[in-house]
């Protein structure tokens, strides 16, 4: 069946809604990567098996939906029973029968599976009442967790593709661009370039054909916002892209996805197929005469291919290396033709902007950074997971109200934003509003939205060393400052962490960093020294402690520390002896244990396992 008019789509929406609402209750099982790793698929299979066998009145297997990531990965596998929004955490296969009996059949609650707020100790029943969710505002992630992850009917049931219908039948391309410009939407991949201006520039260029590209090559360590959207709500990306194509006059588009996201590749491909069947992709969409085709390209795993010009080369089948963008890609992009490239999250926002209007979107967030932003909140924070907040929310609100504070109530040390080439911000910066310009001013950046929280047991020199090593590995190697400069910067950071560096080396690192920033070809190189620059800016004392005192204050850098047993605290439980791979710890049960410093390789396993805090780092 092909949808030809917006009215026909409205009819289909009613039917889809009715199909879903015919069940008195609905089971939403999170099948995002975090929950799948914890066994969500088995939980889902068990639900299907029991629902089939029991034949409950009014229920069929269709009452079950495998959804995208709910975001609260810390508590997975997550199961939500709608319409009440009963929220079950850490559900195991053995719990399924009880949930079916108690909640689905009798609408009662299985208390032991509910979420307990670690801050207050209160048991919370409903999804919306949990602080992790109640402080969020979800626009880009609006459907994820609420609809089955790869079903166009479910997407249509929540109003999907109506914005496309409106854009194609009631708006001109200029009108679409105006609406996006009014919204103030800025590129969510991290660049923060105004999307409306990008589209307008591209639309003005006479050379044809034009292309639209979606950048789904999310490569930052610890980031999974785009992954969640591609897996959980692929149709919202498609809808945004088709609207963009109409606005800039493109008839062909590409989605570039990392090969490391197999489920995203599968779900996007299925979504394209489903959209083609209903006529949202193909010729004469909504009877408007506009035609559009979409291809999916899989990336080979190079971080640098997330850079727009490298990505376009990769799509064209060439080596994925960036080029100097003195001539912009809106002018000369894919196959040297005018190209609009946006990030997954940017496209997902488009249908909402078209539907509710640019002014509505501009009313959220701050005047210069409008709307919301998704973050993957990870590290030493209690509630790690996928979140979305209005721009301008403070780091403190994100880390303490949504994230629930630091694990084990340890002191906060720094938060790393903006991915590997972002920066680390210390305690005094926690009240900064999160928006593009403020973060850049503070020496970090928005990036695509990775947020890694660190406690006092994190050494910033070690962190800088890790990210420099990542960037050094992922440099494409085309230009000298990035390839050789980051290599040397990493070598110098390693020297600091091993206590071999002098204060002159710090000067050398700062000078080299400046040259890498101005001398590199692309954004990866230009922001490459950021892990060093932001940590030296805020944590110079810690660098000096490594250099002058040959001491790692956080107790991390292996060359500068030793582990010892605190005789007053050790109760001889042998836990450390069991985990020591070097057999460096001796002692009998209930007697004091001793670490042989010659054998110890300073892996820290004893430190991590000791429940009595009896292993000390010096």
């Amino acid at each position: 069946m092909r949808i030809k008019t917006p009215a026909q789509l409205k009819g289909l929406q009613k039917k889809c809604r009715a199909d879903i609402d015919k069940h008195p209750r609905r089971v939403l099982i999170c099948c995002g990567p975090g929950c799948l790793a914890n066994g969500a698929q088995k939980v889902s299979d068990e639900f299907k098996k029991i629902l089939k066998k029991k034949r409950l009145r009014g229920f069929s297997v269709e009452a079950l939906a495998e959804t995208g990531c709910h975001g609260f990965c810390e508590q997975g596998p997550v199961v939500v029973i709608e319409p009440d929004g009963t929220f079950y955490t850490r559900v195991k296969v053995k719990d399924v029968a009880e949930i079916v009996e108690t909640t689905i059949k009798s609408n009662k609650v299985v208390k032991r599976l509910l979420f307990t707020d670690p801050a207050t100790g209160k048991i919370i029943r409903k999804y919306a009442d949990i602080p992790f969710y109640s402080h969020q505002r979800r626009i880009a992630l609006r459907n994820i967790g609420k609809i089955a992850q790869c079903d166009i009917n479910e997407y249509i049931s929540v109003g999907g593709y109506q914005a496309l219908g409106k854009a194609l039948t009631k708006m001109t391309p200029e009108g679409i661009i105006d609406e996006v410009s009014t919204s103030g939407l800025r590129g969510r991949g991290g660049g923060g370039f105004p999307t409306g201006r990008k589209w307008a520039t591209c639309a003005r260029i006479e050379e044809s054909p034009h292309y639209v590209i979606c950048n789904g090559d999310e490569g930052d360590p610890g980031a999974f916002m785009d992954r969640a959207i591609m897996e959980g709500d692929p149709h919202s990306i498609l809808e945004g892209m088709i609207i963009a194509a109409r606005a800039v006059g493109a008839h062909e588009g590409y989605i570039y996805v990392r090969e490391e996201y197999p489920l995203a590749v599968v779900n996007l491909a299925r979504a394209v197929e489903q959209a083609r069947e209903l006529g949202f992709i193909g010729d004469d969409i909504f009877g408007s005469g506009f035609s559009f085709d979409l291809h999916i390209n899989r990336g080979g795993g190079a971080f640098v291919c997330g850079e727009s010009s490298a990505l376009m080369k990769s799509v064209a089948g060439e080596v994925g290396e960036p080029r100097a963008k003195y001539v912009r890609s809106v002018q000369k992009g894919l196959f040297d033709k005018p190209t609009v490239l946006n990030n997954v999250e940017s496209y997902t926002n488009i249908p909402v902007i078209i539907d509710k209007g640019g002014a509505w979107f501009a009313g959220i967030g701050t005047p210069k950074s409008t709307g919301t932003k998704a973050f993957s909140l990870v590290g030493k924070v209690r509630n790690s997971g996928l979140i979305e907040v209005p721009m301008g929310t403070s780091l403190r609100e994100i880390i303490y109200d949504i994230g629930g504070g630091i694990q084990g109530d340890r002191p906060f040390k720094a938060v790393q934003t903006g991915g590997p080439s972002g920066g680390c911000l210390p305690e005094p910066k926690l009240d900064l509003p999160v928006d593009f310009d403020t973060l850049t001013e503070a020496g970090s950046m928005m990036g695509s939205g990775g947020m890694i929280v660190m406690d006092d047991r994190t050494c910033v020199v070690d962190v800088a060393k890790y990210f420099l090593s990542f960037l050094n590995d992922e440099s494409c190697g085309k230009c000298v400052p990035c390839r050789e400069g980051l290599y040397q910067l990493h070598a110098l950071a390693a020297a600091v962490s091993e206590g071999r560096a002098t204060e002159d080396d710090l000067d050398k690192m700062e000078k080299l960093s400046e040259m890498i920033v101005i001398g590199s070809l692309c954004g990866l190189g230009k922001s490459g020294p950021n892990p060093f620059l932001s940590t030296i800016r805020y944590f110079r004392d810690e660098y000096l402690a490594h250099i002058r005192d040959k001491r790692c204050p956080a107790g991390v850098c292996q060359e500068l520390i030793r582990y010892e047993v605190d005789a007053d605290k050790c109760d001889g439980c042998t836990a450390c002896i069991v985990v020591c791979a070097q057999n460096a710890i001796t002692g009998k049960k209930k007697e004091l244990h001793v670490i042989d410093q010659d054998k110890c390789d300073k892996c820290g396993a004893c430190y991590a396992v000791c429940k009595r805090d009896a292993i000390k780092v010096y």
Partner: protein
Amino acid sequence: MVTITINGKVVQAREGEMLLAVCKREGIDIPALCHHDAVEPFGACRLCMVEITKDEWNGWRNYVTSCLYPVEEGLIVQTHSPKVIELRRTVLDLQLARCPNSPELQKLAAEHGVNSTQYEIVPDGDNCILCGLCTRVCARLGFHAIATVGRGHHKEVAPPLKEAPPDCVGCLSCVQVCPTNNITYEDKGNVRTIWGKKFELLRCSKTGKATITKAFAEALSTRCDIPIDYFDVSDDEHRRQLALKMGSLADWAPKEQS
């Protein structure tokens, strides 16, 4: 035409012309290692970077690779500002840490005041500075026999799968463009060896000198529609024959004695 200012001098240039070409025409010495007129500008070595600004930029300056930067009206260029000089030195210093034994690089670095590297010497290095000229020339000629493989610090120039490249014709273009003479080959008797592949060398039927490889002759013959027997004699011999022919037509040429 556009008007730009280079080091205080007002200069005219064609719109869209690359800045490096304009500077060279003005006799300004700007170093470059990855640039060659036979291939598209690449912007990898970063030595040709210059400082640019415009009156309307309110003091904001940018650093760009002149080989890739199309000139535009009102551009104000500094080719040897302190920052630019420091940048060139840093780049040469970093390259020296990678290729400490390259005489060409040592010479260029010394000319810019870098006599030894202050950085850690990169282990297992050769003299390849990864300028990509060899691979780009090879691609430009349509052979694509070699390419850069890997990335970052592990990047290197190699044939596919690091085996004898099936598409190589032994033309030696890569050898000729290499700024650090890092690509080696061997001509022995009628056999040329390069990139681990052996080629038969043709000999000039007149002089007996080795000319080009048979594979290259065949490729040229097919692609340029030249009869294959053209390659029976060397280019030098072709020129000599032509000169003789032209000479015999001239009025002043001594008439052959009958």
